C-alpha cells in the first residue's frame, strides 16, 4: 500500500493534454501516480482474484493507464484504461506497477 495518500489533485480538472510528463521516471505504483499522468503498466504483482479480474479487463503490462481522480474520501481511484473507466481502491492499485510517460 502506497503511503502517499494525499496526492495533490490540482491536475484533476485540467485537460489531460496538459498532464505533466515525467521523463525517465522510475517504476512506481499506480496508486502513487499523480492524477492525469499517463503511464505504461509494467506488471501486476499479485495473484488473487482481483489481479485476475484486472488482467481480464485489459489491465495488462504494456497497456496505458491514467488516474483520473479519487473519490471524496481519497479512495477509491478512478482509472482510465483501454478507453474505459475503472474504479479501484488504492490497495488494489498498489499492486499495479507503472512507469510514467
Amino acid at each position: 500500500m502506497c503511503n502517499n495518500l494525499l496526492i495533490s489533485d490540482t491536475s484533476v480538472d485540467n485537460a489531460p493534454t496538459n498532464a505533466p510528463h515525467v521523463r525517465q521516471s522510475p517504476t512506481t505504483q499506480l496508486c502513487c501516480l499523480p492524477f492525469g499522468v499517463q503511464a505504461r503498466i509494467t506488471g501486476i504483482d499479485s495473484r488473487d482474484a482481483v489481479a485476475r479480474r484486472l488482467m481480464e479487463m485489459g489491465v495488462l503490462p504494456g497497456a496505458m493507464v491514467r488516474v483520473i481522480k479519487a473519490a471524496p474520501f481519497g479512495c477509491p481511484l478512478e482509472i482510465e484504461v483501454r478507453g474505459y473507466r475503472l474504479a479501484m481502491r488504492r490497495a488494489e492499485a498498489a499492486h499495479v506497477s507503472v512507469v510514467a510517460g
Partner: protein
Amino acid sequence: MSTSTLTPHAATPHTAHRSNRNPVVMLAGNPNAGKTSLFNALTGLRQKVANYPGVTVERVEGQWMLHASDNGDASGFDSSQSLSQSLMARVIDLPGLYSLDALSPDEQIARCCLAGEAAGVPAPDVIIAVVDATNLERNLYLVTQLLEYRKPIVVTLTMFDTATRRKLKIDTAQLAARLGVPVVPVIVSTQHGLDELRAAVRQELVAPSVVESFSWQMDDADKVTNATLNADDATWNAWQSSLEARYRWIEDVVADATDSTTESNHNGRGSTAHSEINNADDLTTRIDRWVTHKVFGLLIFVGLMLLVFQSIFAWASLPMDLIDNGFGALGAGIRAALPEGLFTDLLVDGIIAGVGGVLVFLPQICLLFLFIALLEDTGYMARAAFLMDRLMRGVGLHGKAFVPLLSSFACAIPGIMATRTIENPRDRIATIMIAPLMSCSARLPVYTLMIAAFFADRRVFGFLSLGALIILVMYALGIVAAIVVATLLKRTLLRAPTPPLVMELPPYRVPQLRVVAHTVMSRAWMFIRRAGTVILAISILLWGLVTFPRTAQLTGEQQSAVTQSVRETGLENGATAAVDVAGNDGAEANTQSQGAQLRGSFAGRFGQFIEPAIAPLGFDWRIGIGLISSFAAREVFVSTMSIVYNVGSDATEEDTSLISAFTDARRDDGSPAWTPLVAVSLMVFFVLACQCMSTVAIARRETNSWAWTLFMVAYMLVLAYAASFVTYQGGRLLGFA
C-alpha cells in the same frame, strides 16, 4: 453457500431431438454492453424471468421471431416444421460478464449455459456476442473466449450510433474477416440492424462459420484457461501469457478494423484505446466533474437519495391507500354477497386481506425500482458506489451496499431486492442480514402510537419535541445495531476480506424508457408472485390463530359479531384495519365478546403462555398478543391492541380512546400495564425485531437459504429481547418505573 451449488448437468441431454425444438440463441456480453436493450428489442414482451436452479442469478428468456418481416424463407434448421411456419427462437439473456473464467456466480452460470452444462437450460445453437462498439478491446476479450466454444457465433456491435458520433469508424467487414464470424452493427433504439441480425443468425443455423484455430492460442492454452487462482507459478504465468496473447491479437484486430488514419497511432500498444477515449468521453468527463466531485458529488448524491426517500415515503402513500381501500371494499363486497360462515371469513380475512397486505407494498416497490433502474441505466449507480465505498468499507461492506440499506428505511423488502446489484454473495447476504434493522415505514405507526400515548406535548430544552427526539433515537439505534452486526458478521460467519472494488464506471447514457418500464414491471411481478405465496399462507394461518378455537359460550349472534370484528380489525394487516364498524348494532357487546374470543383463541392462549418470557421486558400477555400478531407485519400491532383493549376496531394510532385504555389498563396485580418505560422498551423491541413476514419471505427468496433467513429472524429477536430487557430493567433501576 447457495451460489456454489450449480453443478454441470450430469449427462449431455441436448443432443437428441435437436431438430424438433426451437433453436436456442444466447446473448453473451460485458456488463453495460447494451445486452438487455438488445434482448428487449428482439423479444418485446415475449419474455419471462426466473432464477437459475439453486442460485439467485436471474435467468431471462424470451422468444424471438427469426423471420425478417419482408422475408419468407425458412432457415431449414428445423426440417420437421413446415416452411410457412414461423421460426421462433428461444433467446436466453445471460448475465453480464467480463470473462468466462467463473470468478463470480454470474460468470459461472454463463459458462455452464454456454457449454450446455447448466441443468434445465438447453445448449445454445447460436451465440450472439454483444460487443460495445465504443469499447472494442475489452469487449473482444470475451469474444475470444466465446469463439473457443466452436459454436456458431454472431458478433453484434451495439452503441454503433455512439461510435459513429464519436467519429470512430469501424470496418465491420474487416472485423468479420479477422474474427472469422459475422459482425452485425445494430442501433437498438431505432431497430436498425435487427433484420440483418436475424438473417445472420438464420445463416449461422444453416451454415455455421465456426473458427477452428485461433492465432492467439498457444499449445497448452486449453489447460491453463481455467487455472485455479492458487495456481503454481508455471500455471499462472502460462495463463497470463495466454491472456496477454489474446489482448495482443485483439489490439491488432482493432487497429486493423478501425479507421486509425484520423488518429495519431504511433504509441504502439494501447494507443488505439487512448485515441478512442480522448475524443469520446467528453460528456461523461464533464458530468463526472460534478457528480464525482469531492464536495458537489456528495451533495448531489445526498439530494438524489432524499428524492428517492421522499418519494417512497410520501408519493407512494396515495396509491397505497387506494390499494388498501380497494381491498377493504372488495372484502366488504364479498362478505355482503356471500352467506355468513367460516368459508367467507377465510376468503375475506385470510385470502383477500392477505393478498392486500402484499399488494399494499407494491407502489413503494415500483417507485424504488423505477429509481434504481434509472440510476443503473444512466450509469449513476456505479458513481454512487464509487462515492460511498470508503464509508461502507468501514463496516466491511461494498460501496454498492449503501443504496439497498438506504432503501430499507422505507421498506426492507425493496431494499433486500435491491441487493441484487452486489455481486459477491457473502457481501450480499451480510447486507440482507442488516437491511431489516433500518427503521422502515411500518414501524412509524407503532412509534407514533407510543409517543402519542406517553410522550405527547413534552419538550426537552424547551423547544425540542420529545417525540421527535425519541423517533430520531429509534432510527439511530437501528443504524448503530446494523453497523455492529455487519462488523461482527464480516468477522465471523461471513468472514471474508473487505470485498475488492474493481468496478467499471460506464459512460453516462440516456436510459431507454421501455427498458426501465420493463425492469419495473418484471420486478413488481416477481414480488407479487414470490412474496404473495408465502404471505398468503401466513395470513391464513394467523387468521386461524385468532379465530380458533371459537369461544363456546357466545351466542350465535355474538359469535358472528366477534368474527366480524376480528376480521375487520385486520390482524393480517393493520393497514386494512380502518374499516368502519361504527354502524354495527351492539358494538358494546361486540368489543367485549371479541376480547373474550381473543383471550380464548390460540393467539390469546399463546400470549398468556409467553407472558413469563416477556414480563422482564415490561410486557403483559395482551402486549404479547400484539407482539405475536405483529410478526406478520409491524403495523398490525396497533389494530391488535385495539381489540385487546376493547375499544373498537377502527383505532388509528392517535385514537384517544386507545390511549386512555392504555393508561387505565391494569395488570392482574393492579399495577399499571403501561408506563412510559414500557413504551420505550416496546419501541426498542420494534426497532430490532424482525416482525415482518414479507421481509422473511423475501429474505428466503433472495438468500435462497432457510438457514440464513432463520438466522436473521433469530439474531434480531435475540437482539430485540436483550435490548428491551436492558432498557426496561435498566430504566427500573434508574427509577423510571
